[in-house]
């Protein structure tokens, strides 16, 4: 085999006394897409940071083209052509696309910026990527998928030889992912080595040549992708067979009362005349493409966004929700899709994060820290939050543990209705299963769940009924056998159900169930 582009030998990494990587080997060949998979906390992030020169390994060696890698900062690794694209992008939001692409390496003519050359180069690179973004656009105005393209363009402009991508499709729609895969294949054909991490094993199967599995900081296996099934990869990741990812559905009683009824909800710019019924013991899925207005509908209901029309009733009684407090008081809790930006205080410890939503339950005047500590002990056990010590900042936890803490925080108010938005985004399959079990149990015991998710298996595997939205409008409500991928996609893309234009006469009193009747 040829000299690998990038190779790590027996790499270990310790943070303080704790060793998180135990002698891992990893190589990337020229023109290879190499998947790096593992559960949250398996050591993928640490290994990626070592490969890209962010972290220096405690022992072991990293070689680029046979030469030892320099760990004198990120610039050194980039100079040797290794670029890491973070899950959270590394772009200056207020600058333009071209300014970002050339950030830190601006082209100059004499002492002045050569804006024309940079513009032309940016255009050329973006065209090569099949990316319709205008180089003069400001990054803050771009969609998430476009930002990712800009990140890749930035890497390309640096003559990238190894591109390390951390969960690149976590924030992309299906179409956007397809564009990304095309791009990855083209880069591969040009001889770029690509390290690809994802929790979506179907993608791993589809676009990678080899798979390396990490578990608990150990190197478990490196095999050609063609030799493995998705199940096989999952088994290597968790070290046991994954059976029954989704628990068997327990449908709500036929006479289960409606606990939450929404009618004619308008959220300016996002949602028009949306309505639905949620019954006791029910998991109601909300499917649709990204941008269909599902999150905005939920946040409109909860007083987190301005709502201009619509009514809510709770157990048949009218419910006024002007602020999130009102919803919480009515027994409705919300798990945001943005756990880092809106869910958790990353610099704070677990305890203040856990109780932040329900602080009034921990003492009338003074906060009782002993009860908080006891609640944290319980939550850590109940939600299986894995931490070495309880006083670390939440930002240092793995994504899965953060998500479990966020769920525990949300449950602190003892809600009857749980609205969860992308509850398993960017977390591993083992943690996903735990969250699915939790939601299932919650509904089985008489709670009601609104599940907003862009992951089709999740919607289909958990929901009793599915509300499909498109461009801010509820296009259909599916029940029973209709809850399957093809049907959901038909409603989500406008092939079936109410069309957006056909809704001009839609009255605020319009009932979501009508949509099914007409379909």
């Amino acid at each position, binding site marked *: 085999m040829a000299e690998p582009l990038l190779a790590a030998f027996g790499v270990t990494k310790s943070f*303080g006394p704790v060793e998180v990587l135990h002698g891992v080997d990893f190589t990337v060949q020229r023109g290879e897409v190499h998947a790096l998979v593992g559960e949250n906390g398996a050591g993928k992030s640490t290994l990626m940071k070592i490969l890209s020169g962010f972290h220096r390994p405690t022992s072991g060696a990293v070689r680029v083209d046979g030469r030892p890698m320099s760990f004198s900062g990120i610039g050194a690794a980039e100079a040797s052509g290794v670029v890491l694209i973070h899950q959270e992008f590394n772009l200056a939001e207020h600058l333009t696309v071209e300014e970002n692409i050339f950030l830190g390496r601006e082209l100059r003519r004499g002492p002045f910026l050569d804006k024309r050359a940079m513009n032309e180069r940016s255009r050329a690179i973006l065209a090569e990527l099949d990316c319709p973004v205008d180089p003069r656009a400001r990054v803050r105005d771009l969609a998430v998928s476009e930002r990712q393209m800009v990140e890749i363009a930035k890497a390309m402009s640096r003559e990238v030889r190894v591109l390390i991508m951390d969960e690149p499709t976590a924030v992309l729609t299906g179409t956007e992912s397809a564009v990304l895969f095309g791009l990855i294949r083209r880069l591969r054909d040009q001889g770029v080595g690509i390290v690809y991490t994802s929790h979506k094993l179907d993608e791993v199967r589809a676009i990678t040549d080899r798979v390396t599995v990490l578990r608990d900081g150990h190197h478990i296996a490196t095999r050609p992708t063609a030799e493995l099934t998705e199940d096989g990869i999952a088994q290597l990741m968790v070290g046991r067979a994954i059976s029954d990812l989704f628990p068997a559905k327990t449908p709500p009683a036929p006479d289960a009362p409606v606990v939450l009824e929404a009618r004619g909800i308008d959220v300016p710019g996002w949602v028009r005349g949306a309505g639905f019924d949620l019954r006791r013991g029910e998991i109601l899925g909300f499917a649709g493409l990204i941008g269909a207005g599902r999150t905005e509908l939920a946040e409109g209901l909860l007083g*987190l966004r301005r709502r201009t029309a619509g009514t809510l009733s709770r157990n048949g009684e009218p419910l006024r929700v002007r*602020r*999130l*407090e009102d*919803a*919480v008081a009515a027994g409705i809790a*919300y798990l*945001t899709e*943005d756990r880092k*930006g*809106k*869910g*958790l*205080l*990353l*610099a*704070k*410890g677990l305890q*203040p994060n856990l109780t*932040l*939503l329900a*602080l*009034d339950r921990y003492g009338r*005047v*003074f*906060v*009782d*820290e*002993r009860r908080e*500590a006891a609640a944290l002990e319980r939550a850590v056990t109940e939600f299986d939050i894995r931490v070495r*010590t309880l*006083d*670390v*900042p939440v*930002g240092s936890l793995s994504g899965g543990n953060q998500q479990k803490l966020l769920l525990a*925080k949300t449950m602190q108010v003892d809600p009857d209705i749980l609205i969860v938005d992308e509850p398993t985004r960017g977390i591993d399959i083992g943690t996903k299963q735990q969250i699915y079990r939790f939601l299932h149990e919650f509904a089985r015991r008489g709670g009601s769940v609104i599940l907003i998710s862009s992951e089709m298996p999740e919607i289909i595997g958990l929901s009793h009924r599915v509300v499909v939205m498109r461009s801010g409008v509820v296009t259909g409500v599916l029940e029973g056998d209709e809850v399957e991928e093809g049907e959901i996609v038909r409603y989500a893309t406008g092939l079936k159900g109410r069309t957006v234009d056909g809704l001009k006469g839609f009255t605020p009193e319009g009932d979501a169930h009508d949509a099914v009747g007409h379909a």
Partner: protein
Amino acid sequence: MTPSVMPEAARKPSSGFDLKLYGPFLALAALIVLGTIVNPVFLSPGNIGNVLTRTAFIGIIAVGATFVITAGGIDLSVGSLAAFASGVMIVVMNALVGSMGAGLPVILVGVLVALGLGLAAGLVNGLLVTKGRMEAFIVTLGTMGIFRSLVTYIADGGTLSLNSEIRTIYRPVYYGGVFGISYPILAFAAVALVGALIMYRTRFGRHCAAIGSSEDVARYSAINVDRVKLLAFVLQGICVAIAVVIYVPRLGSASATTGLLWELEAIAAVIIGGTMLKGGYGRIWGTVVGAVMLTLIDNILNLTGAISVYLNGTIQGVIIIVAVLLQRGTVARR
């Protein structure tokens, strides 16, 4: 984990010694040792009492500033507000001497006026920041100019002096005390204690830190962000008023230069104490130490002839910069 009013002293960090947590206290200890070496008089009860009494104004204002800064805001108007409230208080008391006679009732009215003004100013700042959706820096830069110009106008560019009879009655509030501890020190201690209770033990304190860390997370945690920020500014206004109440009997006058640069001294005390300027992490006892340190530097320079008192600002500046250097890159544990 035992609940404590002084968590920074009671709680052990997970690994080793945390310089940031104990830094301000160590620095204070170092200054005291230095002071003692420079001049034995330094540790005399008279000198210590003097230092703490002079710290009281800035210290009380800085306790309020700790809340505003922890909640991610800043209040530049406190010095001007102190001058304005002092001026109005003096004018009102002087005007009432005729009808009410020089006595305690007049002073009580004056105190209520000061407190009312502090509260009102806090409301104005807070409402402009929350309902007006403006940067706290801009809002309070504006009100700073307004209050300063108003006191200059009331004093007609000169000095407002308190009626001498009232001053005689009011004087002990600054110069008197119980058991040898002056009233300003007692007021400072009380404000700090209440401030610490609020910051560390109540929902409001926790909410301030949450908002300063991330307004979005706070909003998604059903915290009424506007109300908490408004309350922080009101608390600051009331702290300024308390400082005014013990300041006016000291000189018995107010002018355009009263309370000049107090806002910066208060912010300096807060930062030296380990509170983060960007918000999210506030330390009341740190602020108290910070305020005491600022006065101590002045005091030590006065007691030694070695360094010119004119270099006071240099030393204070160095200490502020070192304090922030030590904060850099460390993450709050609370």
